[in-house]
Every structure is written in structure tokens, then in C-alpha cells.
């Protein structure tokens, strides 16, 4: 294990801003895409149900 404490882990040898800035934004945009694509799929199914009911 490389890290003696959570503090050291977040500090990342002085590169915390860069490492977490890179990982944080990556996680954020992937999460955003997952939400967006699931919404689109749900909307497509809902429109279909709606169309059938008419």
C-alpha cells in the first residue's frame, strides 16, 4: 500500500489538484452520460407507449 493515511492519499504527493482534477471530471462526465443515455432510452419507450395508446 502506497498511502499511510487518507490525508496522504488526497495529497497525492503534492499533485492532488491535478490527479483529482483529472479523475473527478472524468467520473463526472461518465456519470452524466449514463444519466443522459438512460433518460433517452426511457423517453423512447415512453413515447412508444404513448403512441400505441392513441
Amino acid at each position: 500500500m502506497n498511502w499511510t493515511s487518507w490525508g496522504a492519499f488526497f495529497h497525492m504527493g503534492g499533485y492532488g489538484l491535478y490527479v483529482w482534477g483529472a479523475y473527478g471530471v472524468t467520473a463526472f462526465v461518465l456519470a452524466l452520460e449514463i444519466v443522459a443515455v438512460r433518460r433517452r432510452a426511457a423517453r423512447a419507450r415512453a413515447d412508444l407507449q404513448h403512441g400505441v395508446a392513441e
Partner: protein
Amino acid sequence: MKWTTYAAPSRFYALAGRLTPWCWAAAALFGLAGLWTGFAIAPTDFQQGDAYRIIFIHVPAAWMSMVIYLAMAFWAAWGWMLNARMASMYARALAPTGALFTFVALWTGAFWGKPTWGTWWVWDARLTSEFILLMLYLGYIALTEAIDDPRRSANAGALLALVGAVNIPVIYFSVKWWNTLHQGSTISVGAAPKMVATMLTAMLLMTLSFWAYSFAVAFTRARAVVLEQESEAEWVRGL
């Protein structure tokens, strides 16, 4: 069963629906394994300190940005030449994910460049060609969204995707062809990897994770596109 079986939107829809949960699971498992290997096991780099750990997402994202573009161009061309609707729909489903990984490659590159090169951005061959890739993705998405008729939209998109494909070898070989600030390939075919085994393992695990993620998202989006475009089809009405 013929090889063209899954060219039928109905078959694709069913198969993609069955595969998607496995893709999500693989993405999560490989991702956790990759992050654990990358942060808990891989040692601190003697030159770059812990800043190098950005490589575990930077290189896989850059690979995916290129692989997805090639897949998108391939299916777009396939749909155009053979008038295969499903191939065109799949190409469209790939584009946003490819654009996303291109953005991630650029973003993580900037956050890696600042501490190691002293600058967020430089217009060198590698960075510029990757930036052009992002513009190609956005152009493809804008073009296909702008044309309402599915067939004309797919054909116009295929033309753009094919012309833009020349950019992929440019990105890949840019660090060889030009003198770039960007470093050369970390691993290449036929040569020993220039990195510690645990670092390499973490990078490959993250690559598998991103790959599985891409399949999961693209399948989900492609199924939505099928429902949107084929809403008049009998099998869709029967769902």
C-alpha cells in the same frame, strides 16, 4: 443463423438488451480492479511522482477516442454502402461516447501537462490532431442531428466520418512524424513496454473498463435510436 441476422433492428434490439447488463458489470469490475491496482499497488514514479497516475485514465480514454471513431466510420460506411439501417443507427449511437472520451483524453492530458510540462495546453501535433478529432465528432453529431430524413442524415454523416478518418493515423503517428512535446508511445507492438508491470496492468484494466462502458452506453443509446427511428415498424409497436 446467418451473419446478417443482427443487421435486423429487431434482432439487434433484443441481443443488445441481453448484453448490456453484462457490459455494465464488466465495466464496474474492471474499473474497480484498475483503480485499486493503479492507486494501491502501482508504485510512485521516480521521475513524475504521483502525477503520472493520470495515465491510467488518460491513455485508455485516448485509445477509446480513436477506436470508437474507427468503429463509427466503419459502421457509417457499411450502412451507406449496403443501405443497412442498423449499421447507420449504431454509428450514430457511438458518436457521443467517442466525443466524450476525446474530451476526457484532452482534459486529463491538460491536468497531466501542467505539472510535468508546465503548461495546460500546447498546439503540438498530437494535441492538435486530438482536438481536431473532437471537432470531427461534434461535426458528425451536428450534421446527423440537423437532417431529419434518416437515410440522408446517415449518408451525409458517413461521408464526413470517412473523410475524417484520415485524422486517426495522423493522431497515432504524430509523435513519430513530428517533434512533439507529447511523449512517444508508452507501449507499442513488438517492443517491451516502457513501464513497470503493475502500472501497465492498471492501464490495461482501465482500458477494458472503458471498452465495456462504451459497449454498454452505445448499446443503450442504439436501442433508443432504434425505437425513435423505427416507431412505425410492426415489431416496435408490438413491444
